């Protein structure tokens, strides 16, 4: 947050006298103001000779602070924002679409499942479907070199209507070029991409065609697990702040976010989602995927949902 010095140009009331007074109380920036008891500060101001002017300064800083939180909304405004901006995107994957209609923009959906349970297939299918159907951009963060353009082409081929087969090449090209894949192999590379994405989204503020509708991180756990070792303090802090960044991107820019997570052995040998308790409070929706042994029938069930009962389950097929 801004140092007081830099505010002087825009707000003349924050003059050197005011800065000096603040400095004597250990306040150098707007952030320091947040950490202070302003009532105590005002009491100190009363003793000063220039108290009026200093008080105006504090009021000025308070109005700056007022601009630094998210806007106030009431229930109807929230509902309206939801109706207009938070659409449910059909993924083409029967599992997700049956359970909740698709992926909701503004939400972070997590796919949990043991290895080779079909998580990446669901991601690839969702990417193809959303890129084709909504002519939106998809940002795909691939952490294990599992992104497969061939599979994408296959999925697109499946959803194309037969009469348009001759134009297939062109459509395929268009859809493929709207899926942007980034290979990231550590959490810092991911944060880099996400911050870059955020600043692009802020500067463009696009609507309609060509805006980013889906962000996929496959897999989230392979980026986070390596940093959770040791005392775990900084690793967990990074994990939680990445989670908040995803939620912020999702909500502020109306992007649907899909991340994957693997399973680890818990107490008593039962499998449970990796990344522990602190991660649990990050995703809005948590879906469990598993595959019947040796077949391509998958099961999907709701582990957690913001507006639906958990436990609901369905079966779907991954097409070869």
């Amino acid at each position: 947050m801004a140092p007081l010095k830099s505010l002087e140009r825009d707000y003349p009331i924050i003059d050197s006298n005011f800065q000096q007074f603040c400095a004597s109380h250990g306040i150098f920036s707007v952030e320091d103001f947040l950490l202070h008891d302003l009532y105590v500060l005002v009491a100190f101001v009363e003793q000063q000779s220039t108290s009026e002017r200093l008080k105006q300064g504090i009021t000025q800083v308070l109005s700056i602070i007022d601009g630094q939180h998210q806007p106030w909304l009431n229930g109807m405004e929230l509902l309206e924002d939801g109706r207009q901006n938070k659409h449910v995107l059909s993924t083409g994957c029967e599992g997700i679409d049956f359970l909740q209609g698709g992926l909701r923009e503004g939400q972070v959906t997590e796919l949990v499942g043991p290895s080779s349970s079909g998580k990446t297939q669901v991601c690839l299918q969702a990417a193809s479907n959303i890129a084709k159907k909504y002519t939106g951009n998809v940002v795909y963060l691939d952490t294990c070199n599992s992104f497969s353009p061939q599979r994408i082409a296959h999925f697109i081929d499946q959803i194309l209507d037969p009469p348009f087969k001759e134009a297939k090449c062109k459509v395929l090209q268009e859809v493929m070029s709207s899926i942007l894949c980034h290979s990231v192999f550590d959490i810092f590379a991911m944060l880099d991409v996400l911050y870059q994405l955020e600043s692009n989204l802020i500067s463009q503020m696009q609507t309609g065609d060509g805006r980013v509708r889906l962000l996929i991180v496959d897999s989230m756990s392979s980026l986070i697990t390596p940093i959770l070792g040791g005392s775990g303090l900084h690793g967990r802090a990074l994990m939680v702040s990445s989670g908040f960044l995803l939620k912020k991107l999702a909500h502020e820019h109306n992007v649907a976010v899909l991340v994957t997570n693997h399973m680890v052995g818990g107490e008593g040998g039962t499998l449970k989602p990796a990344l522990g308790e602190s991660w649990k409070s990050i995703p809005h929706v948590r879906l469990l995927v598993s595959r019947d042994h040796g077949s391509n029938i998958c099961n999907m069930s709701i582990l957690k949902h913001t507006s639906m009962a958990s436990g609901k389950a369905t079966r779907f097929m991954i097409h070869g």
Partner: protein
Amino acid sequence: MALKAWINGDESAKEMLGRVLTERPFLLLPPFHRVPLRVGNVVEVVGPSHSAKTEILMQAAVSCILPKEWNGVHYGGLEHLVMFLDLDCRFDILRLAQLLKHRIVEANGSNSNVNWDENDVGVWEDIKKEPKIAYDEDLFSTSMRRFLYVRCYNSLEFLATLKTLCHRLQKEREAHGVSVHILMIDSIGAFYWVDRASTSLSLGGTNRKSLSLQSVSEIVVMEIQKLLLVHPMLVLATKPTILGDNYSTSGSKRKWSSQDSSDLRTVTSGSQKLSYREYMPPVWQSFVTHRILVRASDDDLANRRHQNYSIYLSEWSFPSLNFLDKLIVRDAGVFTVS
């Protein structure tokens, strides 16, 4: 002068009656129903992720924003504002709207077996197309407007919100003609790891405060205390148990035996056991006046009678009532089951 004020007493009987009537205990729905709550109380709902904490808050919010009566129909609400601070950033307005509509329809008693088609998840459209049964759009939107919401993505935004809340609540009170009755915080531990890690990044400087879990908690408590003086409210905060799943497994017990035993809060009730490990700084802990523990039950009762519903357990740990409530969450809200 001071002596005279003392002799004159603090308030007249009329003033006192007025105060007592506005400060009457809240009659809230489960699991708050066991203890009378008043403005100024700070209630913490503690439980692991997925234990219906937010659901419990939303149900209380609906009771608060509904009017007592509307067009001759009794809704039994408090007709006051609710302020919801969303630190988890997972609030689903759709769920609140759904709960509110259920309550409105229920009070009208029009049709007890309304089909709120569960599979129909064309979510946003539902709200508009659903009223096969008539419900009062006006009542719905008036009530929804009493629900105030701010989301915070980090501690600094949270502090910035709190610092400007007093002024803002004043304005809302003037605009609506009623005051905010409940301040909700979902959830208080959201930035725990981030704040703890930022401690080590302390900036130089002699008397400069640095951002840390301790300093943030101190300011949060201080701001809310100051706020409660001007705007008497009930504070409801959720707190996730982020330090591992802690209930009654021998492995976890062993792990903690070396720790300070006061860190581990355990509530025993028959064979069931709800416990959690405290992680918020003492300044927040001592600010809390009531505490409820909740968790999802792995009880098989679920399979017998309430097939599609998960069962949750709730227990008052502060004040300690040796009683375990079983709750289920349905579309229409949280209900106790015996």
